């Protein structure tokens, strides 16, 4: 009887000890993927699509345990200094215009050009970012570049299909251009060099590029009022919605414009390997068609950016 009691006592104490050990084990030894995930602050550049991309990358990271803050800036010119000084450490960008922007800064003459070829532009961009301790991750197939857009009637009246066609009648129309156009290599200087369109000689109304007001001003315009040509973005929902005609960039003013996240090296180094994998996984699924569809959901269906991002990530199987 006594021996039996001792055995039961011993067995139950042993069981207790074993369960205590294993329970303590799983809470005191973190697995490698839970180790110190650095804080991420993702930036965006004011317009809806930029905020949408930031939200998509942010939510993908959050689904894998990262803490992500968002910070929006009114334009690239304001976001880049913040990226340089570490206020933000992740920034979804467009490889062509980013490279051109870096090239237009002091000392940028030595940088390779942004061309119509994605790989070449990526190489040149990576080289441009390296001295700043920044990197560009994989490019998404999706491209969104500046585009010059006219109403269907205007295109019919003036037989406009390409930018070269537009150059011939440039002074007959009022142009909607952003204030930074005169400084932007993909806008003012580029239009002059590639197509011979000198914006200083044209009738120009200054509105934010790729914005709702720009699209409205074009849509509500006619021969006497509003604008005749607008600078919109090629994945903008309004082009479809208002049946605009996007003029073909026949002389390749606009370079390869793939979406790609740029990241500070200090974040890249501090983060575990899954950081790059997660972001590259998102980029791989982002095509131009997908991006345009998402824009329509935000602009036309008036759905919130957070909801659209969450739904898309779930549909693509990126948050399981």
């Amino acid at each position, binding site marked *: 009887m006594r021996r039996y009691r001792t055995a039961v006592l011993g067995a139950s104490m042993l069981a207790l000890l074993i369960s205590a050990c294993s329970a303590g084990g799983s809470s005191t030894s973190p697995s490698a993927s839970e180790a110190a995930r650095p804080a991420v602050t993702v930036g965006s550049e004011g317009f809806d699509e930029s905020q949408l991309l930031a939200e998509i990358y942010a939510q993908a990271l959050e689904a894998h345990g990262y803490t992500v803050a968002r910070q929006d800036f*009114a*334009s690239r*010119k304001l976001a880049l200094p913040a990226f340089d000084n570490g206020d933000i450490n992740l920034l979804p960008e467009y490889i062509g215009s980013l490279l051109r922007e870096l090239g237009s800064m002091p000392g940028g003459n030595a940088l390779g050009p942004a061309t119509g070829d994605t790989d070449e532009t990526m190489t040149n961009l990576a080289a441009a970012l390296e001295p700043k301790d920044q990197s560009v991750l994989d490019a998404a197939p999706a491209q969104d570049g500046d585009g010059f857009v006219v109403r269907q009637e205007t295109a019919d009246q003036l037989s406009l299909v390409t930018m070269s066609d537009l150059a011939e009648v440039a002074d007959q129309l009022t142009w909607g251009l*952003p*204030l*930074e156009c*005169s*400084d932007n290599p993909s806008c003012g200087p580029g239009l002059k060099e590639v197509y011979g369109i000198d914006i*200083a000689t044209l009738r*120009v*109304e*200054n*509105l934010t590029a790729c914005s709702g*007001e720009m699209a*409205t*001003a074009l849509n*509500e*315009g*006619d021969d*006497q*009022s*509003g604008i005749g040509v607008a600078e919109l973005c090629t994945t903008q929902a309004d082009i479809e919605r208002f049946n605009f005609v996007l003029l073909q960039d026949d002389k390749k003013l606009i370079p390869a414009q793939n979406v790609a996240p740029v990241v500070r090296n200090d974040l890249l180094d501090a983060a575990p390997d899954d950081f790059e994998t997660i972001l590259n996984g998102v980029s791989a699924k982002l095509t131009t068609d997908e991006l345009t569809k998402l824009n329509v959901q935000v602009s036309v269906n008036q759905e919130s950016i957070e909801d659209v991002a969450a739904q898309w990530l779930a549909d693509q199987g990126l948050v399981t």
Partner: protein
Amino acid sequence: MDFPGEVVSWFAAPEQWSGGNSIPVHLLGHLALSGFALLGGLLIALPIGIAIGHTGRGAFLAIAMANVGRAIPSIAILGIVFPISLRLHLGFGFVPTLIALIALAIPPIVTNTYAALREVDRDLVEAGRGMGMSEVQLLARVELPVGVGLLLAGIRTAAVQVVATASLGAVISADCLGYFVLKGIATQDRAQIFAGALMIAGLSLLTERLFGALQRRVVSPGLRVTRAAGPSDASA
């Protein structure tokens, strides 16, 4: 070059003085916006202020409605009117900005006009009635001359607010001094931002001085307002 030097050379640059985006063009646009907005505000607000100030009735409702013009952000009014203005072929940035500015000019004029008439000594009004004056005569010969100081203070407040806020029109491509501020921000040209802000501030100050001088000339010496009249006087 040091910053003040940059600003000075910005002003001195010839491109600032010729062409479609020169200082004269935007200054003129700014003055046109401000002038017409103040005029529009006066046409709407003065009759209302006089009516409620003279009769003393309907003041609460009128002033509450007037203050809507202050409560709704001007930029929201801009955004709402913009597509309508385009559709009606009313031009690009001028009309929506004008409407937003008129909305801003109305509250101080209504409130100060009301206060001005209410503060006229009741004895004077009674004396006038006793002399057989009609309501219109009372207004013209007693109430307005006595209350003109505070009334002009309201117009002055409205004028300064309108001149300062007209720069908002640059957001929708209206010709105004705000262009330089926005262009400076877009191109990260600090000297230009500062120059634009300087011009707007300078114009606002000038407006304040001008209306102040007008007040001193128009108000009868016997009625010199002893304390500073301003928005705080309108207790509504």
